[in-house]
């Protein structure tokens, strides 16, 4: 069952590439942003996978209990803030998409490009 210890990383690799595929292969701008958010989640998964220690618990120290094993708090801090920053930047992306829709009447990449060439 040695391979089970790598399963998280494999899921990271697959989800990461599914995200990338959506960004490069889909023409709809909202779909691209959804792909970006999947891509981002995969990176979060990688970091949080690295924090786990066998037999460990969440890094909250209990008074009077010694010999506790804690998982690594540092990746958690990094990802905690990254999630909130991620939603803010995603909102900025959505706002740009809304403005593109108002300017071009479409959020499909090929239609926007066709309009640009026509001008």
């Amino acid at each position, binding site marked *: 069952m040695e391979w089970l210890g790598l*399963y998280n990383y494999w899921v990271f690799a697959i*989800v990461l590439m599914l995200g990338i595929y959506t960004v490069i292969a889909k023409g709809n701008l909202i779909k691209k942003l959804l792909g970006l958010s999947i891509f981002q989640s995969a990176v979060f998964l990688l970091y949080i996978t690295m924090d786990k220690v*066998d037999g460990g618990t969440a890094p909250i120290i*209990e008074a009077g209990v010694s010999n506790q094993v804690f998982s690594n*708090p540092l990746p958690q*801090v990094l990802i*905690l803030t990254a999630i*909130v920053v991620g939603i803010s930047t995603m909102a900025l992306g959505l706002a740009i998409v809304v403005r593109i829709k*108002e300017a071009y009447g479409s959020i499909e990449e090929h239609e926007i490009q066709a309009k640009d060439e026509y001008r």
Partner: protein
Amino acid sequence: MMVLFSVFLLTLLVITAIAIIRTTDLFVAVMLTGIFSLLMASVFFILDAADVALTEAAVGAGISTVLFLGALALTGHNERSLRPGRWLAVPVVVAAALIVYATFDNPRLGDPEAPVHQHVAPWYLEQTPELIDIPNVVTAILGSFRGYDTLGEVFVVLTAAIGVMMLLGTRHGSAASPVRPASASNGLRHHLIPRVLGRLLIPFIVLFGLYVQFHGEYGPGGGFQAGALVAAAIILYALLEGEGPALTVVPLSTIAAMMAGGALLYVLVGLAGIVLGGNFLDYSVLLSNPVSGQHLGILLIELGVGVTVCGCLLSIFHAFAARDIH
């Protein structure tokens, strides 16, 4: 047992991601993203990251879904793709195979000898009880040891919210018109069950948000999670009762003051450290006892973070909601 559960959740995660990509109805895709985030939050929880799981559940499954739906209302929910670009799957599969091949050199999940556990992390775990004396090490690192990072991230959130306001305009701007479609302004008022259940839930979500804010030093939680939770409660109110009543409860001027005020509070706490003879964001000098000073400093900056995050998320929501459908 836990391992099997984890494998099950991760497999579901991949299936959900594939479903998001395959569907051409963006409405379905956004709802699946909510499920994706919830699964991700469960995985984080199993991996001992309680704080991160709380954040992902509040932000990913809650607010992110609402923002995407708000954008869909303005752009339409049908994906019309003439260019499938299926051949792009080939390099993507090759890259995925390469990453999977590379993982065979990775330390196994939970290996205590992994390099990531050898560097500064043990120092944080050892020194937190002595220097800061709060149980939650994640909050100690976030607020004190790496306070600079957190300050920067708060300003990234603030900048993004300002960017959304500039792109979409606020209600004060010319983009807003008094004539709005009835369905948008009245929310779900005519739906009895969501309205009754929502009204029952909102006070408890706000209460839980406040608990998470002020108990974040002792249990999972802190400013980022609390800000997202309180914002989610107010957004739920706006969805149920319509935007007008929500803006009566928390007006745009209050939201703007929250956005700027929280970040300002954070910077002022940092500057207070300099004035009192320490370094920027050194809380030990705030009170005569260094450990109490750390407690006070972390409490104040977490409050600043919570207020800014809540204000920013609300302003982003209102920017999308106030935009007229062209």
